[in-house]
C-alpha cells in the first residue's frame, strides 16, 4: 500500500506543478503587452557582432525595459531567421537576393547600420612593410596561378619586401559567409578569370587543391596566425583585435590603399549617389583615389509591417537610436559610420515601418 500511496502523491504533486506552470504561461503575454518589459531577438552576421553587442549594451542602459539579444549566427542564418520569423530582426552583410525577398511574402526593409572592410592578412615573418596586393594577384593566389611568395608578379608590386621562396597557403571561409560574398564580389568585378571560374558567392566553389578552408572569421585568423606563409581574408575588426598585418590593396584608381575608417568612408561616399531606393548595394571596387576597394555595408533586416505593435515600436526606436546616437561607438571598434546622406535615407525607411497599417514612429 505504501508504494501506491507514494505513487498517488507524486502524481498529485506533478499535476499541481503542471497547473501552476500552465497559469504562468498564460500570464506571460499580458505582462509583456503592458509594456513593463520587452525582449527582442536578433540574429545574423558575425562581422558586426562587436558593434551590435556594444549597441545593445548601451541602449539597454538608457532603456531598462527593453532587452535585446543578438546572436551571431552568420549572414545566411540571419536571412533564414527573418524568413522563418524566428527572430525580430535579422542581420546580413550581403543584401538579400530578389528571389529570397519574393519568398518572404511581405516587404523586407534593408537598414544599413555601419560600414566595414575585408582585409587580406598574412603570416610572413621576414616581411616588415605592409604587403601590396592587386586584385589580379589576389585572384591568381586563390586560383593557384601564383604558388610561391617570391613569384615575379608579387615581387613587381613589392620590390623591397623580403618575399620567401615558400609555397603560399591561401586560407578561405569553409562556411557560407557575407565576408566571402564581399571578397568574391571584389574579385569578380576586377578579374574576368575569377568571374568565370569562381564568381561572386557567399559560399563560392574554391579551386580544389588550392588552400584550406576554416570556419568563421576566427577560424581563418587562427589558421593564418598558426601557419607560416599563409594568407587569408577576414573582417578588419578581427585583424586589428589580433594585431595581424593587413595588406594594402590596389583600388580602381590604381592606388594601394590601407583599410581604415577614412578609406572605407571614401568608398561609401563614392557610391552614395548611385545607391538604389531599397538601399541594397555592394560598394566594392569603388571609384576614388582614397577608396578602399573591399568595403561593405552591413544590414539589419526587418519586416516593414511588424506583427506586434509593441515589439515593432521597440525595433524601430532601437534602429533610430543606432544610426544616430549609436554611431559614436562605431569608430573605436574599427567600423566606419554611415555617410550623412545615407543616414537621411535610412531615417525615411525607419519612419515607414508600420504595424497593422499604423506608423510606428511619428516623424
Amino acid at each position, binding site marked *: 500500500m505504501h508504494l501506491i500511496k507514494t505513487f498517488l502523491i507524486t502524481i498529485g504533486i506533478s499535476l499541481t506543478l503542471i497547473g501552476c506552470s500552465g497559469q504562468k504561461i498564460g500570464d506571460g503575454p499580458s505582462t509583456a503587452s503592458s509594456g513593463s518589459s520587452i525582449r527582442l531577438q536578433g540574429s545574423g552576421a558575425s562581422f558586426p557582432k562587436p558593434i551590435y553587442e556594444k549597441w545593445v549594451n548601451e541602449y539597454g542602459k538608457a532603456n531598462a525595459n527593453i532587452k535585446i539579444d543578438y546572436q551571431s*549566427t552568420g549572414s545566411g542564418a540571419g536571412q533564414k531567421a527573418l524568413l522563418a520569423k524566428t527572430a525580430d530582426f535579422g542581420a546580413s552583410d550581403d543584401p538579400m537576393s530578389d528571389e529570397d525577398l519574393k519568398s518572404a511574402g511581405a516587404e523586407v526593409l534593408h537598414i544599413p547600420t555601419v560600414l566595414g572592410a575585408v582585409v587580406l592578412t598574412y603570416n610572413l615573418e621576414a616581411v616588415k612593410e605592409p604587403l601590396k596586393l592587386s586584385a589580379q594577384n589576389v585572384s591568381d593566389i586563390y586560383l593557384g596561378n601564383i604558388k610561391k611568395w617570391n613569384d615575379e608578379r608579387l615581387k613587381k608590386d613589392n620590390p623591397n619586401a623580403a618575399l620567401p621562396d615558400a609555397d603560399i597557403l591561401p586560407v578561405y571561409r569553409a562556411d557560407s559567409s557575407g565576408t566571402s560574398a564581399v571578397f568574391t564580389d571584389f574579385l569578380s568585378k576586377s578579374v574576368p578569370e575569377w568571374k568565370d571560374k569562381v564568381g561572386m558567392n557567399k559560399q563560392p566553389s574554391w579551386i580544389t587543391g588550392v588552400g*584550406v578552408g576554416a570556419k568563421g572569421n576566427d577560424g581563418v585568423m587562427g589558421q593564418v596566425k598558426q601557419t607560416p606563409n599563409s594568407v587569408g581574408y577576414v573582417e578588419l575588426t578581427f585583424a586589428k583585435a589580433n594585431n595581424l598585418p593587413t595588406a594594402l590593396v590596389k583600388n580602381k584608381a590604381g592606388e594601394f590603399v590601407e583599410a581604415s575608417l577614412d578609406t572605407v568612408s571614401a568608398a561609401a561616399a563614392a557610391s552614395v549617389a548611385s545607391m538604389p531606393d531599397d538601399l541594397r548595394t555592394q560598394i566594392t571596387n569603388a571609384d576614388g583615389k582614397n577608396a578602399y576597394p573591399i568595403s561593405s555595408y552591413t544590414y539589419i533586416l526587418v519586416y516593414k509591417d511588424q506583427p506586434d505593435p509593441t515589439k515593432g515600436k521597440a525595433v524601430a526606436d532601437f534602429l533610430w537610436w543606432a544610426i544616430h546616437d549609436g554611431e559614436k561607438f562605431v569608430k573605436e571598434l574599427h567600423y566606419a559610420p554611415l555617410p550623412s546622406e545615407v543616414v537621411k535615407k535610412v531615417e525615411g525607411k525607419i519612419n515607414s515601418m508600420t504595424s497593422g497599417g499604423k506608423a510606428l514612429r511619428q516623424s
Partner: protein
Amino acid sequence: MAQTGAFGDKIFRIVLLIAASSILLIVAAIFFMMVQNSLPTLERFGIGFLFGGEWKPAQEEFGALPFIYGTVVSSLIALALSVPISVGIAIFLVEQAPRYIARPIAFMVELLAAIPSVVYGLWGIFVLAPFIREYLGPFLQNYLGFVPLFQGRVTGIGMLTGGTILALMVTPIITAVVRDVLEAVPTTQREAALALGATRWETTQIVLGNAASGIAGAVVLGLGRAIGETMAVTMVIGNSPQISASLFEPANTIASLLAANFAEATDKVYLSALIEIGLVLFLVTFVVNAFAKLLIMKVAGGTNSAKHV
C-alpha cells in the same frame, strides 16, 4: 500489495514495451524525416549523388564521394593509431599495474573523455598542426617519401592531423570499454593458465582471445565517435572536398561539412543536399555497425564471453 499481482506485471510489461519501442520509433522517424527533406536532391541526382566527386553549392552540383572518402579515411587513421594504444593501456591496467598506479591512470583516461571537442580542436591548431608541419611531416617524407601517402606539401592542416586528433578523442572510450571487458574475463582462466606454466605474455594472449568480441565492440564504439565528430575535425582538416592520395593534403568529412554549413544553408536545394549527405552518414554508420556486429559474431565463435557486450 495483494491486488496488484498479475495486473501489475501487465502494466510493468506495457511500460517496458513502450520504452523499448520508442527507440525504434525515433530511428524510423529520423530516417523518414531525412528522406522526406532530401527528396529534392534524391530525385534530381539519384544514385549519382554518392559517386559525384564535385561539391559546388554555388553551381548546385553535389557529389558526396570526397566527404565519404574523408570520413572513412580519417576514421581509419584514428583507429589505426588509437586501437593499439588503447588496448595496450587496458592490458597494462588490468593485467600488470598494481592498484595504486592503475587507479590514477584509469582516472586520467576517463578525464580525457570529458574534454570538449573544441578544446581538442584548439590544441590541434596550436600544437599538433605545427608539430606535424615542423617535425613529423618532414620526418615521414625523409624516410617514407616514396609512398604516395606521404608526398606533397606539408602545411600541418589536413587528413593526417584530423585523423590524429580523432585518435586522441577515441582513445579514452576504447580504453575504458576494453578495460571493463578484460576485467570481466574470469580470474580462474588466468590462474589456470599460470598454473599450467604459461608466462605472463601467454596468459594475456588467452585472456585477449576470450575478450576478442568485447574488444571489437569497443572499437566500434570508438569508430562511432570518430565518424560523428564535428568541431575538432573542422578546425584541423582543412575543409576541402578533395580525394588525394597524400595524407598531408586537406580533406573534409561529412560531419565536419554539416557542422560548418548547416546553419547557413538558405537555399532549398543546398539544404536538401546537406540533409541527404546526413542520410548518407546515417547509412554509413549503420553499415559499419552491422559489419562490426558480424565481425564480433565471427570472432566470438564459441567463446562464451561474447554475451558480455
